[in-house]
């Protein structure tokens, strides 16, 4: 289907946000809002989100991506992914204004964009689904565990690798320092504190993974998880699930689907991986009917 890109500007609490809408000729009633994660802006690493939006629009789904306050071209001070509820609401509002035939929005988020989506979705009845890629559940301890378990253990004993890395001017010293820091973090923890949910804190200050779980539980709608095989962030999330009955129960729910892309890295940095993600997303968008 023919689609075109439209430049968009809208306000959030007095700051201008900049975005791009990929608009099909005859858009479906279900649209996609891309929430950008990490230190990225709306185009994404190697234009991942630009190409995703165009791919989805070609299949009939209007797709809006934007820079939240403090990122990319948008105004305001730098902020954390935990403080973007107002930005997401402004974007959803703008989406409905731009596409009058729209009835519902699926939020698509990578990394801490997925985490931000989980915080927001249950607060807005216009959000009908979530696509969550390599969700960011980082705690110092989770990172240390995942690093040791999946990365260094497999690599440390390969002198050949280190030789090559050195000849390629790999930052060996900082990698070694980082390994030591991970070990210290892990060893400093009390053994009975392995479940992040047990950290002492009020509801508002609950650990990140717990707040994300509550977000998904409260949202109650359909969700698609996509995990990269060669990604520490994804491994950390899957380790968390393996250690938590609550997460396992949520992910086993029939409204939740999962895909795993074994060779892919965190940002799906090959055309074949990007295209696979676009296709999984589009296929999934066709599978579910609106709950209410």
């Amino acid at each position, binding site marked *: 289907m023919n689609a075109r*890109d439209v430049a*968009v500007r809208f306000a959030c609490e007095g700051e201008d946000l900049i975005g791009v809408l990929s608009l099909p000729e005859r858009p479906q009633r279900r649209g996609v809002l891309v929430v950008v994660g990490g*230190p990225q802006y709306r*185009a994404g690493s190697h234009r991942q989100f630009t190409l995703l939006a165009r791919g989805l629009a070609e299949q009939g789904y209007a797709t809006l991506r934007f820079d939240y306050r403090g990122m990319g*071209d948008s105004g305001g001070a730098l902020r954390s992914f935990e403080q973007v509820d107002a930005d997401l609401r402004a974007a959803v509002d703008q989406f409905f204004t731009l596409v009058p035939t729209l009835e519902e929005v699926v939020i698509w988020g990578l990394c801490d964009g997925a985490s931000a989506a989980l915080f927001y979705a249950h607060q807005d009845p216009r959000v009908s689904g979530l696509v969550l890629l390599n969700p960011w559940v980082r705690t110092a301890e989770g990172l240390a565990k995942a690093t040791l378990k999946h990365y260094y253990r497999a690599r440390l004993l390969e002198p050949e690798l280190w030789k090559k*890395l050195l000849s*390629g001017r790999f930052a060996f010293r900082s990698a070694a320092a980082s390994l030591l820091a991970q070990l210290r973090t892990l060893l400093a923890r009390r053994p009975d504190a392995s479940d992040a949910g047990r950290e002492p804190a009020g509801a508002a200050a609950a650990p990140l993974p717990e707040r994300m779980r509550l977000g998904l539980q409260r949202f109650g709608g359909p969700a698609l998880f996509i995990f990269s095989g060669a990604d520490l962030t994804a491994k950390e999330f899957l380790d968390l699930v393996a250690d938590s009955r609550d997460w396992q129960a949520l992910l086993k729910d029939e409204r939740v689907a999962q895909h795993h892309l074994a060779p892919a890295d965190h940002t799906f940095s090959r055309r074949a991986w990007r295209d696979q993600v676009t296709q999984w997303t589009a296929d999934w968008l066709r599978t579910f009917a609106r709950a209410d």
Partner: protein
Amino acid sequence: MIPRAEPFFLDAGPGQRFCLFQAPAGACRGALVYVHPFGDEMNKARRMAALTARALAARGIGVLQVDLYGCGDSSGDFADARWEIWLADLEAARAWLAARLGVAPGLWGLRLGGLLALDFAQRCPHPVPDIVLWQPVQQGSAYLKQFLRLLSVNEMLAQPENEQSKAASNTGALRAALLGGQALEVAGYELAPELGAAIDALDGAKLAPRAARVHWFEMATAPDRPLPPATTRLAAAWREGGCDLRLQQIVGQQFWATQEISESAELAEATCAALEAAAPIEETA
């Protein structure tokens, strides 16, 4: 008050280019086309570009940021990007900005965008009042090598045992393959042999700036760090050729390459101060 930034798509063959226009506050004292760097350096530097564009606008200098073909939000696939299309994109942006503000626009380029700005200025039939260079790449071949190293490191990390990756881990072999006509997918970007060859051939010594004034900024890790010899040599060569060059070091991070987004208020401020002293030049039809 700084006027609101205006995002729009500019028609340019093939397709359209994403543009962000930051109009100047009050009377227009000048204009710049921003030329972004290559690959993910463009993404990381996006915030600094926006912040500096706003700071320049507050001093009366309008800025047009343009995403080159196959980059950012613009049309096309990176695999189809060519140096000549990018040069044409800059002319489209320059013409739009000149018509909008009625002054001759200068150029402001970061890293590889600096070399593109210099190449464009040499070919441009219109007067170019100012060129701002932020840590310009000086040798295309060195830059290409650095970019290809991303591929060799990634492959080593992914498959240390793989025979194929052993061969590919040699940056020289990758360069030869690219220049021999094989497209390469590097860190998510498909680099065409034509674009690779164009970058490989760029030489700062042959791209002496054709502009009334040149403001060159380099980032340094400490205030007492001497400039790299290559930088001093190139600056001396340009000056010998009659270039009015102001070279300045700013202490701060290489914000286009940091893991998280970083800012340098000092660089934005120094850029504004350098241009504030410059008088506008009327655009001639």
